């Protein structure tokens, strides 16, 4: 069984040295954290997929330019003039 994650609460209304407390996460907070992890993983996958797709378009545009073949509008959009 894994340990319950904790959070550090810093109550700035208290004097220095008495502000910090370590509190276990509630079940609701753990569920929120799990949801955030899933969202973060999805967002990162989306970002990577978009970056890969852009790179593929650039590679294709470059190959067509070298070969003298016409570019698609999408490929042309990747060029910086």
């Amino acid at each position, binding site marked *: 069984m894994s340990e319950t994650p904790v959070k550090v609460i810093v109550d700035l*209304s208290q004097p220095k040295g008495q502000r910090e407390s370590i509190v276990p996460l509630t079940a609701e907070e753990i569920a929120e954290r799990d949801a955030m992890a899933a969202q973060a993983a999805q967002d990162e996958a989306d970002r990577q997929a978009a970056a890969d797709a852009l790179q593929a378009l650039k590679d294709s545009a470059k190959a067509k330019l070298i070969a003298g073949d016409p570019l698609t509008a999408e490929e042309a959009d990747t060029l910086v003039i």
Partner: protein
Amino acid sequence: MQLIETIEVGSGGAASIEFTSIPQDGVDLVVKFSGRSTNGANRIACTFNSGSFSWIYLLGTGSSASSNSGTNSSYVYTGDSDYTANTFGNTEIYIANYTSATDKSISVDAVNENNATEAIQVIHAVKASMSQSITSLTLSGSANLAQYSTASLYKITAD
């Protein structure tokens, strides 16, 4: 710029660092954060006592650049457990007019260090839609923040 508090995560890590009862005698707030995640996640979320976010970012990985926009929590990039051992990410969050009763303008710049191909550098422009002052601020990871992750909260005063 006046330091309000610095917190370092202890052994075992922590899911989040939450500053509460933030003093209301400043003009702007600044958070400086050095962090590393305990799993493969390389970012954490920054949230306040209320408000929703809209953001746009420009991100570079070392080999490519991209931009994106969104409307959920504002994310802060940090070190990743998959990255070179003992490397941490650095982030600064600047919150203008944090005691105002109107929307807040926030900028975030962050880098993570990784002695490998990918290391992220990102600049966020964020609007926090809220009608009250910021009294609490939470930095929370989808995994634990590793030991020695450190958050410092500063205020900018008018005098």
